[in-house]
């Protein structure tokens, strides 16, 4: 197994100098909004898009100018890209067949990959007879069968319903633990990223915004962008000298104070007064949208303790749960 290293990679469609290295048994999740360049990055690694400058290494091989077929990577597409005219077995074996692997060996490896994924009972079916989840498994088995150095997964769960998605992300993580290898998983779903990733690379406008473990991304977001992109509802960001700030924090107008909705304290004497504009009940928890002066704050409170819309209530936050950012650069200070 190998590992993957990108060195100052520039490419068309908005990859503007990405440095990234993924360990040989690591599952890296690339997270970002639409248009951030996540899928483009994956296609650059696969060799489907040419690199304008910089280098791509898989293990110690420089694959920057290598055609996709020689890179020993495999890819699971968002659409799964299964061939409708082939059975599941032939779909899985496609890469082996075109590489002229002997038939008996191809059959054996196909059966093994199918067993690993748990789709051995589907081998004789055609893709149109499969459910979305089953198709996704077949696409995974096909990615597995060639034992590639790098697995690339391009939003493979975006076509699944929520329940199946929750199940599948655990399965893919477990699969990765079993088979090892370098895996790069692209998603725009922050929960998926937090649950699955050994590390998360947050992308924005073709650049890496932050690279770190899920804990690090959650607890120490490097920029206001990461802070607001990860977490739902998004983190509150207020001016350093604004109304809502920890009482023991010296106000500094060049700062932005960030705090998650969970950290908002409601109804404590001494805090500034705000008014409730809207309350969304989401099961156990409720999201309370408040306006404090000219600023908006979102709080997450247990539904039983939610205030009513229109009520006036004191809004505050305490020292340990705030993040400070430089207002000019958006970077963590």
């Amino acid at each position, binding site marked *: 197994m190998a590992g993957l290293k990108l060195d100052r990679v520039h490419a068309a469609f908005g990859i503007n100098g990405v440095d990234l290295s993924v360990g040989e048994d690591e599952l890296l999740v690339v997270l970002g909004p639409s248009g951030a360049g996540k899928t483009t990055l994956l*296609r650059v690694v*696969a*060799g*489907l898009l040419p690199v304008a400058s910089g280098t791509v290494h898989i293990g110690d091989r420089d694959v920057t100018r290598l*055609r*996709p*077929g*020689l*890179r020993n*990577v*495999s*890819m699971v*597409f*968002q*659409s799964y*890209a299964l*061939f*409708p*005219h*082939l059975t599941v077995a032939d779909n899985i074996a*496609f*890469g082996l*067949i*075109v*590489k002229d692997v002997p038939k008996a060996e191809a059959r054996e490896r196909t059966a093994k990959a199918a067993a690993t994924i748990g789709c051995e009972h589907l081998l004789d079916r*055609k893709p*149109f007879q499969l459910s979305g989840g089953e198709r996704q498994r077949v696409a995974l088995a096909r990615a597995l069968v*060639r034992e590639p150095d790098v697995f690339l997964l391009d939003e493979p769960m975006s076509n699944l319903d929520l329940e199946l998605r929750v199940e599948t992300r655990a399965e893919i993580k477990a699969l990765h633990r079993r088979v090892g290898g370098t895996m790069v998983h692209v998603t725009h779903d922050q929960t998926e990223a937090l649950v699955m990733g050994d590390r998360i690379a947050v992308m924005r406008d073709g650049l890496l915004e932050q690279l770190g473990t899920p804990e690090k991304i959650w607890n120490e977001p490097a920029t206001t962008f990461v802070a607001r992109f990860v977490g739902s509802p998004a983190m509150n960001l207020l001016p350093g000298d604004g109304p809502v700030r920890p009482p023991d924090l010296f106000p500094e107008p060049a700062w932005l104070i960030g705090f998650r909705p969970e950290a908002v304290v409601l109804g404590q004497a001494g805090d500034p007064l705000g008014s409730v504009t809207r309350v969304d009940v989401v099961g156990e928890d409720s999201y309370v949208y408040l306006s404090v002066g000219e600023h908006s704050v979102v709080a997450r409170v247990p539904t039983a303790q939610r205030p009513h819309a229109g009520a006036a209530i004191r809004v505050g936050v305490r020292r340990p749960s705030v993040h400070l950012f430089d207002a000019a650069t958006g970077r963590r200070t």
Partner: protein
Amino acid sequence: MKKLLLPYLIGLVALVFLPFGVTFALAFTEYDLINPPVWLGTGNFAELWGDGIFRTALKNSLVFAAIAVPLRLILALALALLLHRRAFLGGTGTTVAALPAAIPEIAYGLLWLWLFNPLYGPINQFLAGSDGLTVFGRTPPGWLTLPNDARAGIIIMSVFTMGEMFVILVAARRALPGDAYELAAIEDATGWDIFRRVTLPLMAAPVGLLLVRDTILSLQLSFTPALVVTNGGPPPYATTYLSLFVYRNAFEYLRYGYAAAATVIMLLLTVAAVAVQWRLLSSRRL
């Protein structure tokens, strides 16, 4: 809603079913447009069976279909795969490939009459060297004078009018999903493998449909060229196809019954060919 189908239904009955019924009935009669039809039973079919000209026409039509249909399809598919990308000169290429199909058949035939001319036609001028022989040392083809060369000529004429098939196949190729090809690239499939294992199976439906349709049309395709360019010759009947045979009998010899019987045979042949292809295609269905 059902009322909206009425005009179509009337058209279908008046222009398709009625003529078909009349033709079918006439096939069992002798009819010359002047005297009332005379019932012959299966007499026309018996006469066709023994008619050497009919047999020649039948053979000519079958050979033509067996060669021209696959050739047209292969050329249309090859050009579609070559020109489906929006690239430099791609638009020009597409226009050039599609254009011959847009020329009126008679004009197209007259054009080839000139192209095929053995003395001053550009094809033979191109083929013949200064000694009047081709590079293989034989005389250039006698497109209008030798039976086999004339049959080849009619096939060549028909091949270049595959423009409509080409346009359909370009559209079909453009509709194929890009990720299938990206996957093939990642799995390192080579050009031939990509064609055989990706492109062709994914385009099987439109290609199969065009094959069936072109087979149906093939009995008519040869009509205008044979009439305009070779006039059914070289003598006696080298390029007399079923369609021309029917035309001659009906409109030149005024033997409507006899022509109708030949038409019925033509129809049965078409149905048989389509049935065979349909079965072959269905057995390979998804």
